[in-house]
């Protein structure tokens, strides 16, 4: 069980370039999330998905797009990178939520992708 994996681990882009970050999970989880982590700000939710073929905006979605064509993969795209998108990006996944609190599933995080936009 690899858990949640992210590729690449590091990337340097020039302003205006595009790229895609890949997140993969092998736990058959329904829900997947993309966060960004900036110093002193904790983690902020960019986009999320509650199942294959569905995506939704989180707290800071501007400048990003996502796709969930397969249940195990969640892609984060930057169409035209800006220096403000320099950050560490984390993907997370979790099983289906139920109304019973005792069945609440934790979010499992990937190791992160460190992105620098020059």
């Amino acid at each position, binding site marked *: 069980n690899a858990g*949640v994996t992210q590729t690449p681990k590091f990337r340097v882009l020039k302003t205006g370039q595009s790229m895609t970050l890949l997140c993969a999970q092998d736990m058959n989880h329904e*829900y997947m*999330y993309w966060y960004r982590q900036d110093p*002193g*700000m*904790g*983690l*902020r*939710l960019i986009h*999320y998905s*509650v199942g294959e073929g569905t995506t*939704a905006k*989180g707290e800071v979605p501007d400048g990003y797009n996502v796709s969930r064509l397969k249940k195990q993969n969640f892609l984060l795209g930057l169409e035209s990178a800006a220096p403000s998108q320099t950050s560490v990006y*984390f993907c*997370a996944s979790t099983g289906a*939520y139920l109304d019973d*609190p*005792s069945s*609440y599933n*934790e*979010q499992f*995080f*990937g*190791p*992160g992708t460190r992105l620098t936009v020059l």
Partner: protein
Amino acid sequence: AQSVTQLDSQVPVFEEAPVELRCNYSSSVSVYLFWYVQYPNQGLQLLLKYLSGSTLVKGINGFEAEFNKSQTSFHLRKPSVHISDTAEYFCAVSERMDSSYKLIFGSGTRLLVRP
């Protein structure tokens, strides 16, 4: 919308000393609360969680936290820290969204354990 406040950005402590990392959340309704740990250059790992029941929650690596509803706090404690506990610690609260929940994170507290 909920918010989480971690009052200390950095906490230096000597090895084998006790430590408390503070966390306050904004909501007065039922909440699920979490502490995550992030070791250098790694992702986040769940330390412990409060869903319901006993207000004292025990987690991994000897950590525990106490849920205090009246003070809307969920402070993390460890009676004796090790060098290996040096990491960043995040408090989080769940918030309902659509058919699932999202996590609202605090800004983090960096624990520095010195020999």
